[in-house]
């Protein structure tokens, strides 16, 4: 599942550590989500979307909606 988390974070000039602190998770968790090594739980996905003021599907793109690299 592709994620726009890195882009959204960069738009706000937040470091991974800052974002992790806002979400109440570790920096490793943020990094793993950004590098697509880990897919967050539904509750964390909602928390991320809420933090960026958008919908879950605007942050996490299902494979059929992901842009070809």
């Amino acid at each position: 599942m592709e994620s726009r988390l890195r882009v959204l974070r960069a738009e706000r000039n937040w470091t991974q550590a800052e974002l992790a602190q806002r979400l109440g998770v570790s920096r490793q968790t943020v990094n793993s989500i950004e590098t697509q090594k880990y897919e967050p739980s539904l509750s964390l996905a909602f928390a991320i979307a809420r933090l960026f003021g958008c919908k879950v599907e605007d942050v996490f793109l299902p494979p059929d909606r992901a842009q070809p690299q």
Partner: protein
Amino acid sequence: MNSVPTADRAPKPHSSLSNSIVIPLAFAASYIAARWGIKVLPQGSREALVAALLPVPVFAWLIYSIVRGTRALDELERRIQLEALALAFPAALVILFTAGLLDLAGFHGEGNWDLPRLLPLVLLPYWFGLALARRRYS
């Protein structure tokens, strides 16, 4: 859905001092005391039974502390711990069964297959699994 810890609802941070130093020391002390008690007290006596069960409450405290610590982890760290334990638990069983069979086969070594000898062997797969899981998500 309440699995995301936030500043308001995060579990109370447990004392890392008690987790990392006090509890293992207490467990080691109770184990040494139990071994000493079993050695000096008459076998089969009530006192020897008390000595043998001495580490159990400390071990229960250790388990409680681990569970509390696990609840304070974030979701990725929980998964890492789960993957480490998924390797460590069956590996520990295999090691214990093998040690038991070696003991029955007459390969006692020095001091038999007792806890001080087995503990590092049982913990090794956990550390190995932890390193593997951390590497996978780093």
